[in-house]
């Protein structure tokens, strides 16, 4: 599909930019405006996580296809401290940063596919995909 957007995340304005770009890409993929907002919210949560825990990182947005299904894939990469206990980090309401604890578990709820890969001291990669519902 070729459409790939790489967005650096180093300040809170980048969080807004990333979710707006994500919404635009979701619109291109034909998602409803409700689902565009859902995708934007998921991007907002993981982009904020990058800032909060790793200070900087990158989000890549792309269009994906599986058979005749279209979707949006989001990959968030940072070289931050990593997540020591992923199971715990995925619990809704658990936060080590005085947040509401909706970041990772919240984004997972919003997306169809969600994967966290993290190595302590090396960084974290979150990969998530939303598929368009067949009409």
């Amino acid at each position, binding site marked *: 599909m070729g459409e790939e957007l790489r967005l650096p995340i180093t300040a809170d304005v980048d969080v807004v930019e990333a979710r707006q770009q994500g919404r635009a890409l979701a619109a291109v993929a034909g998602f409803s405006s409700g689902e565009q*907002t859902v995708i934007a919210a998921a991007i907002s949560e993981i982009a904020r996580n990058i800032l909060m825990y790793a200070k900087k990182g990158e989000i890549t947005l792309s269009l994906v296809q599986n058979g005749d299904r279209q979707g949006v894939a989001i990959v968030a990469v940072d070289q931050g401290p990593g997540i020591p206990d992923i199971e715990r980090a995925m619990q809704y309401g658990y936060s080590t940063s005085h947040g509401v604890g*909706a970041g990772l578990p919240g984004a997972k709820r919003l997306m169809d596919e969600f994967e966290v890969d993290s190595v302590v001291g090396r960084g974290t990669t979150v990969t998530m995909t939303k598929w368009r519902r067949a009409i």
Partner: protein
Amino acid sequence: MEVPILRQGQFLIASIQSALTDADLSHLREALIAQVGRSRCRGVIVDVTALDVMDSFAVRTLRDIAHMARLRGAETVIVGIQPDVAFAMVQLGLTLKGVATVLDLEEGLAFLNRRTEERTFEAKPKKPSGRG
């Protein structure tokens, strides 16, 4: 992006004009809470019609505004949550429990008028007793 805060009688109206960063939201919280005291207002309306997304940080900040304003003697009402935004909030599991939300600015003003009248009424001493 600074959010303009207008004064309308006893109420403050913060009208969000575009997408806000986390810093913008925190700034709005500080500005509103300070102004509740300065202008001795009884109610706060936050109009979120223009917000593209309400994620966990935005929801928490709005909840904080409402609770802090209440501690300062003012009622808060959130107006203008768009259908798509509400949809995403519910999917994300975010609620605004304990915070008043109404459809639009007009409803917001009506709500605050009702609430502040009730409060004035409650504050009045009960029926005079022990006479006659």
